[in-house]
Structure formats: structure tokens, C-alpha cells
């Protein structure tokens, strides 16, 4: 399962992420890399983009564990809402995202066993590509441990 699919699946299962991203029309506004037009107007949006990934190796060859730099952008027309969701992702959601084991993807889902996710940086910008008024964007940079066999 691609890392972005893992992240989106776990976000959809999280009540806190749902409260920000699940629209009344049923759309869960968590996107892969690009922010499609027309969604910031509906509410807070998140995009997750893999910046790069480094695979660990041993003498016999590559391991299944990769360290992925993930850029998570949080978009909203209200800067406070964007910052609040960024804080929630940092403090509550990402510490419970396990991309190393399949525990959370079982039925019923189990607890996160290895949520080795590290926040590296955060910055806030205005995105002027969102017209006619720019969107507030909190950019989170994470290093995520990911098992490529899951």
C-alpha cells in the first residue's frame, strides 16, 4: 500500500481529522500532493506529498524499512483553523500513525505499535494560487518510518 494511502486511510479513521476534513457532502479533503480546485471553499484541506525517501540497507541488500520525508500542507481560509489542525496533526494524529506494522489496518484495527514519526519543521505561508483570496497554509515536514512490505 503506498504511504499516501496509509496516511489517508488512517486519517479517515481518526475522529479528530474527520472533524476538520470530512465535508457534509461526504468528501474527505485529504489529497495526494495536489490541492484540486474548489475544495478550500468547502473547508480545511490537507495535502500529503512525499518529498524523498531513503531506504535502509544491510550487507545482504535493502531492508523493507524506508525513511520518508513527507510534507503535509494544511490549508484553510482562516489562519487559526489551519494552525489548530497543524497542531492536532503534530500532537495527536501523527504520534498515532503506524506505517511500520499492519496493526492499524487489521479488522478490527489494532493500536499503533511503532509510530516512529518525527516532526522536522513547520512554517506558515499564504498561497496566492488560491483565488480570489489566498489561503493560509501551514507546512509540516515529517520524517516517517514506512514498511514497504505492507
Amino acid at each position: 500500500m503506498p504511504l499516501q494511502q496509509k496516511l489517508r486511510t488512517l486519517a479517515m479513521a481518526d475522529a479528530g481529522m474527520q472533524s476538520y476534513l470530512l465535508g457534509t457532502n461526504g468528501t474527505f479533503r485529504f489529497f495526494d500532493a495536489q490541492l484540486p480546485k474548489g475544495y478550500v471553499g468547502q473547508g480545511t484541506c490537507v495535502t500529503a506529498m512525499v518529498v524523498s525517501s531513503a531506504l535502509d540497507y544491510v550487507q545482504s541488500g535493502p531492508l523493507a524499512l524506508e525513511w520518508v520525508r513527507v510534507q503535509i500542507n494544511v490549508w484553510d481560509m482562516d489562519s487559526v483553523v489551519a494552525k489548530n489542525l497543524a497542531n492536532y496533526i503534530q500532537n495527536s494524529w501523527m504520534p498515532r500513525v503506524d506505517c511500520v506494522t499492519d496493526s492499524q489496518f487489521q479488522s478490527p484495527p489494532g493500536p499503533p505499535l511503532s509510530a516512529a514519526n518525527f516532526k522536522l519543521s513547520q512554517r506558515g505561508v499564504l498561497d496566492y494560487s488560491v483565488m480570489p483570496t489566498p489561503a493560509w497554509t501551514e507546512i509540516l515536514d515529517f520524517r516517517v518510518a514506512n514498511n514497504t512490505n505492507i
Partner: protein
Amino acid sequence: MNQDAIALAIAGVMPAAIATGLFVSLFTAMEPVPTIGPTGAVEFDYTPVSGLIDIPCIAAPESPANIVATEVRALTEITASEIRHVLLDAWYPQLDAGWRGENSDDKGAWIATIDGFNYEISGVESDSQTTQTRVKVTLATV
């Protein structure tokens, strides 16, 4: 001077234009309908906008007096742009309001299909007397 005559003359403009038989092309506005995949990747399929389907129009080249070479050669690519100025047969405020697809609105940018070709909409304008809507469209090939 009977000023009512001005309004009557304006009201007669488009019927007279249509009566020439020059509105031989058909214009359809298309809006993007997104499908979101399991990773959150979005794919857009364009579907006709209700009320803006098969509108008779004149789809003229940008400059009717001559052929304009808008093909630009570069070292690694060729870009060909085809620009048309389209006159619709009536006033369509729905098109004027909806074509932009701004990010903060609940919709995406529309495209236009004219006689089977898909064009990007570059601009939409209506006259002050709301008798007609004009559309500038571009077909760019890289």
C-alpha cells in the same frame, strides 16, 4: 426622439444576427467532476453543464483578416496555440458566473467543447444590454 426605439433596436440585434444563418457551430460548457482515489489523488472527468449544452455560436479565429502564425519553435518543444473568439446566440449569465472555477469556490474551472474540440476558456464577457455572451477560448498543444 423616441428613446424606446433604442431599446427596440438593441433587442433586435441578436435575432438579426441569428437570422443570417452564421451560427453554425455548437458550444457546450463542461465542468470538472472529481473522482478521489485511495491515495487522495484526484482525477477530473468533464461533464456538460446543464443549461449550457449545444448552444449555437460563431467560433471565429482571433483575426479574421489573415492567418496568424502563433506557432513558436524552441529547441526542445513546439507550442501551437489556437485562439478563437466565440459569439453565443444569447446572454448566458450562468456561464459568466461559473467558468472561472476559483479555488475558494465550490467548483473547478470549466472548459468548452466546440464542434467536438475541447478548448480552455480564457475569458467570458457579456454586453451591457445583456443580449449576448462572448467567449475567448484557447487550444494549446505542446
